[in-house]
């Protein structure tokens, strides 16, 4: 009896134990199935990423401004190479990596672990290294970014760092688009966390090659602009110069040049001061190029009749006990001539007719004091303080293009609004993105324009600006065969709150061909030495750029001399 009872207890105990084991098995294999499987995979599998090729940057005329080439790097790990085979490894690798065997031997001795023997090699080297079947020696795929046009549009294109991250220009702004997504693979590894073979390669997530950017910049126009700016900098001894060429109806930038520039493929040859894009980063006082906006504000507010005569006070005007000189003793001038002769007194008298709020509203509508939104990461917003910070002299300062700093691109955007019948189009660089096959992925359509001034005011203003080139300070900007409208501006450079003698900025902003302009061009020459008046420095550059660009693009002339 006793034995039977004991046996029963033992039986129950065994049954209970079996139940516990069974339940635990269910818990491990059914309930926690995913957790344990993932843990197991982590132990025996090793994920690795393969970068997809970076997209190109292609100009409007189909030129590749930035592209990538597949390259390989050969590495070695002396710890994994048996010491007695170092010599044979060095001899085999020598012709492949282009280094003497003795150098490879020295490197193997000097390094304790993984190191790169050679980088930037042809992809064919990969197969040759694989054929050696030598543990501790292998290849890694990488890319070399190539900038075939050197410094042409360098600040716009930008550059990438050694890790392939965009650092400046479009390379930085569109880094994620250009880079694409890497493919993720899983491969079996052994207990020592090494990968004996790549036989059991499993694709975990498929990558996406980087998209190419089709940009609005035209290499030929860009080259013309850069040539002319370099010539000007050489001739005038200027610190630098920049220019913007854009299509006023779409806001597309045909050229955005900055001199001095840099070659993104050879960064070491340029200094940090060369690597900023003056067109979007330099905020400078616009001088008299700002006068048309004062006139626009006055006409829009109904306080100025475009056909009326303005009293230019015979040589200057006194505001809050400060006398503002004029270039000459002008008496009564029509508004058109106030602009053509760039009369300071006339512009100041017009500015004081407009209320601070109305003036501020028009200035802000033209986009001053805020970034244009162009796809460049370093763009500045310029400097513009609203009426709450104005003094009694502020409107006079604004009439002369002081108390405000603008970038050449902001000024081009504002002049484009005048050229476009009062509709402001935000400047843009990228027209569309394309995949590897060239199919359009994202087309960027121009956003509808924002009306900043009535169309009739814009038309009157544009006609007045024709006078500046025909008979005023901008005669040097004339283009044979085309009617040009524009405005000169010479501003003193301000440092630490005061103007410095002998340091100027020469501007010319204009558009052609009138009456329906296709091009807006802004030229800014920073600190010219030999001559500094915009009429002598910036206007001729505008004329040369406009003439060459008009011929290149086949613009229809508005006038000419018949043979």
């Amino acid at each position, binding site marked *: 009896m006793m034995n039977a009872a004991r046996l029963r207890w033992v039986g129950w105990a065994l049954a209970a134990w079996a139940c516990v084991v069974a339940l635990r098995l269910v818990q491990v294999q059914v309930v926690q199935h995913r957790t344990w499987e993932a843990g197991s995979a982590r132990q025996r599998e090793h994920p690795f990423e393969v970068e997809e090729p970076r997209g190109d940057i292609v100009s409007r005329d189909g*030129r*590749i401004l930035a*592209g990538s*080439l*597949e390259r390989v790097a050969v590495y070695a790990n002396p710890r994994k190479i048996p010491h007695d085979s170092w010599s044979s490894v060095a001899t085999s690798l020598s012709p492949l990596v282009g280094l003497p065997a003795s150098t490879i031997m020295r490197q193997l001795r000097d390094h304790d672990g993984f190191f790169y023997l050679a980088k930037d090699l042809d*992809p*064919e080297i990969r197969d040759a290294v694989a054929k050696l079947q030598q543990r501790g020696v292998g290849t890694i795929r990488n890319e070399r970014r*190539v900038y*075939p*046009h*050197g*410094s*042409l549009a360098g600040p716009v294109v930008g550059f990438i760092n050694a890790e392939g991250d965009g650092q400046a220009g479009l390379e930085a702004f569109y880094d994620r688009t250009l880079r694409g997504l890497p493919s993720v693979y899983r491969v079996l590894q052994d207990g020592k966390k090494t990968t004996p073979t790549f036989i059991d390669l499993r694709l975990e997530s498929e990558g996406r090659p980087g998209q190419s950017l089709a940009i609005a910049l035209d*290499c*030929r126009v*860009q*080259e013309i602009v*850069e*040539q002319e700016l370099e010539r000007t900098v050489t001739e005038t001894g200027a610190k630098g110069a920049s220019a913007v060429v854009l299509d006023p109806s779409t806001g597309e930038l045909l050229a955005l040049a900055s001199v001095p520039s840099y070659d993104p493929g050879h960064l070491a040859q340029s200094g940090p001061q060369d690597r900023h894009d003056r067109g979007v980063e330099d905020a400078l006082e616009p001088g008299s190029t700002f006068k048309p906006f004062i006139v626009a504000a006055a006409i829009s507010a109904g306080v100025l009749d475009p056909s009326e005569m303005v009293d230019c006070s015979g040589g200057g005007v006194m505001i809050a006990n400060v006398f503002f000189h004029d270039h000459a003793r002008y008496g009564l001038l029509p508004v058109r001539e106030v602009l053509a002769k760039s009369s300071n007194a006339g512009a100041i008298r017009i500015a004081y007719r407009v209320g601070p709020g109305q003036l501020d509203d028009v200035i802000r509508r033209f986009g001053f004091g805020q970034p244009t939104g162009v796809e460049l990461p370093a763009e500045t917003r310029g400097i513009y303080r609203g009426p709450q910070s104005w003094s009694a002299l502020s409107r006079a300062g604004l009439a002369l293009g002081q108390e405000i700093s603008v970038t050449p691109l902001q000024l081009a955007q504002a002049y484009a609004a005048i050229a476009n019948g009062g509709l402001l189009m935000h400047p843009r660089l990228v027209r569309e993105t394309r995949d590897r096959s060239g199919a359009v992925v994202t087309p960027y359509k121009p956003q509808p324009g924002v009306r900043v001034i009535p169309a009739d005011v814009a038309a009157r203003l544009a006609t007045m600006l024709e006078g500046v080139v025909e008979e005023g300070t901008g005669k040097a900007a004339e*283009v*044979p*065969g085309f009617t040009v409208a524009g405005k000169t501006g010479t501003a003193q450079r301000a440092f630490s709150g005061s103007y410095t003698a002998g340091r100027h900025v020469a501007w010319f902003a204009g558009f052609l061909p009138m009456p329906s302009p296709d091009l807006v061009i802004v030229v800014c020459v920073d600190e010219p030495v030999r001559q500094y008046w915009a009429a002598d420095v910036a206007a001729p550059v505008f004329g*040369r750029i406009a*003439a*060459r660009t*008009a*011929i*290149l693009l086949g613009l*229809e*002339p508005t006038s*000419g*001399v*018949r*043979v």
Partner: protein
Amino acid sequence: MKVGGYRPRNSWLRRQLDTRWRAWLILCFAGAAVVSVLMTAFIAPRQSTVRMRYEIAELQRAIDRLEGEQRRLLLDREVLTSPPALAAELDSLGLAPLDGTRVAHLTPGGDLVTPGAKPTPTATPRRPRRSARR
């Protein structure tokens, strides 16, 4: 006392030769042949698939190599034909930069316009002297 083991002797048995071995052998061969045929029929298409996959992989590699080469050549061409490179080589190429003074164009009216050219003097009709006196 020594106990000896009993060991039956069956030398009196005479085993008859089984003459069916040939049939068994033939049957085995036939079975093997059938299995071989079946396996060949099953494996052969797969083998050709595997072979084709290898060939595709080889061709893909060749395509990748050629595409890489094409891309390298494309970028080389870009370098050689870039506007700054051409501008630097204008003299050696026998070219001259284009500016407004060297281009004539037709107006929509069909007139040839040469920027910078002066009108020909014969284009203006001279007034008769007699009428001028009047």
